[in-house]
């Protein structure tokens, strides 16, 4: 990362997040939800088979697993939005949910956003187009819940880390190439 890149990242903070960042964040969250859900199902099946006289095979209970995954995903997103204002996938890509005016997300708006979130899928993806074409990069559930997603990561620390890394590399180069007598 260059020095101008670090400064550009600092300037991005607080701006509306773009489509790619939000898509990758959603992908990360989805991976976490599926992974945790799968592991949980496997652990439950293993526990039933070991601890009980019954022999459970959850591979064919698609509806049940889907409902459980859906509930788990809702709990995952709702809890992280309410507690942290962002999901773990958003944290990875430096995003945060705020209210439309920029104030912190509260519980009420987080829940509204959570319940409106499926509209993006129920509209066959049309609800997500606002992220790309809207002036404020708001999806349909953002408009309903009056929320927005902004860049919000510790760009200052990133800049310092970048400077420290470059300084370390520069000092290391000086040690490896001794000055001519």
């Amino acid at each position, binding site marked *: *990362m260059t020095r101008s*890149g*670090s*400064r*550009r*990242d*600092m*300037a*991005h*903070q*607080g*701006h*509306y*997040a*773009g*489509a*790619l*960042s939000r898509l*990758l964040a959603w992908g990360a969250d989805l991976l976490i939800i599926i992974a945790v859900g799968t592991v949980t199902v496997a652990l439950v099946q293993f526990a039933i088979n070991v601890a009980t006289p019954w022999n459970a095979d959850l591979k064919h209970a698609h509806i049940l697993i889907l409902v459980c995954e859906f509930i788990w995903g809702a709990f995952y997103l709702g809890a992280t939005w*309410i*507690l*942290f*204002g*962002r999901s773990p996938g958003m*944290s*990875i*890509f*430096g995003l*945060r949910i*705020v*209210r*439309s*005016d*920029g*104030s*912190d*997300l509260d519980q009420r708006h987080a829940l509204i956003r959570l319940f409106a979130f499926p509209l993006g899928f129920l509209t066959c993806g049309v609800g997500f187009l606002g992220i*790309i*074409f809207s*002036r*404020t*990069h708001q999806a349909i559930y953002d408009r309903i819940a009056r929320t*927005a997603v*902004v*860049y*919000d*990561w*510790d*760009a*200052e*620390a*990133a*800049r*310092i*880390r*970048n400077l*420290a*890394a470059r300084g370390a590399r520069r000092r290391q180069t000086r040690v490896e190439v001794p000055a001519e007598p």
Partner: protein
Amino acid sequence: MAEDTPHPRQPGTDLAPRIARAPDPDGVPRPLLAATDFAVGAASQATRLALRVGSTGWDTSVAVGRLVSRLPGAHGAARLLDTATRPLVQDGRDARVRARSVARTGTQRLLEAVLPWVVDALDVDALVARIDIDALVQRIQIDALVQRIDIDRLVSGIDIDALVQRIDIDRLVSGIDIDTLVQRIEIDALVQRIDIDRLVSGIDIDALVQRIDIDRLVSGIDIDTLVARIDIDALVERIEIDALVQRIGIDQLVSGIDINTLVRRIEIDGVVRRIDMDALVRRIEIDALVRRIQIDEVVKRIDMDALVQRIDIDAIVEQTELGTIVARSTSGVATDALDAARSQTAGVDTLVTRAVNRVLRRREADLPLGPPLLTGEGEADGDPTVVAPAAGGGAGAGGPGAGSAATRVAGESPAPDPPVEERP
């Protein structure tokens, strides 16, 4: 008869002294005296009768004259009579004037002959005693009297030398009450009337000084008493310091001072204790002082290695934000990867947004960068507690608002570098 009894004279009581009645002249017979009295009485009665007849005749003449003057032709007759009688009237008037002069001369002679006898006969003391001096003085008009006096003529007639010689100076002086006299003198008015310049110009200072016995004069002065009576404060206030300083020859004065001796006599500790260091420091113009310092020269003289060795790194890391920064900057490879991923995705987002705006023909300047409170538009709305935008203010995995840009308020430490507003 009481008139026949001798009347003793009391001095100062009778205007004319009573003279003891002289006895009838010897040899004059009583019948002669009676005949004389008869003759005098008859003459008196005759005179009285004549005067009464004359008076009646005069009155009658006046009445007749008035009657005649009212008759027709009386006026012309009066003129004719006046013309005819004028020479006679003139002669009569001349005779009357001559007679008046003769009578006046005779009267004067008579008075000159009689008055000395009358004056000698008067008792002056009694006469003076009967005069009411106060009433007399009140009736005198002093102003008119003074105006009638010819002062110059009066003074010129006085022989001053003779007058002075007749004055007994010792007696006069001994009779003067000096204290009362001095108390009555108005010193201020007297001093104001003295022409000091004229008085001083008339004094021969040199002669006066030569006559003064300086030693005797100084020996008689009580220096302590004199100094004690001097009002030092008033004296100092009257001194014009500026004029005095200008007259001092500074170079000559300084050359005569033994600086070493002077410095040795100064009690440095006492002087330093009396200095108000706060007031002194307040009077120093720090900016002007700093401008005069050559920073480069100062920095060159600093031993940076020794300075760095004296820094307590542990205390700095423990007590300042530097420790937090250092801790955040030592997150390792995963953090570097995250920083790179975030930066790259944000960059791609910027490209996508620009492309969409170009397709939709939207001007980027018209688009909002972010929520108002995070991009500084909140300040314009009058919310002083919200400042924007949050450069580097993100919270890695904090709770909502923990370290978020929107919750930074005035008073918190700002970011090291101000945010650079770039269009993504």
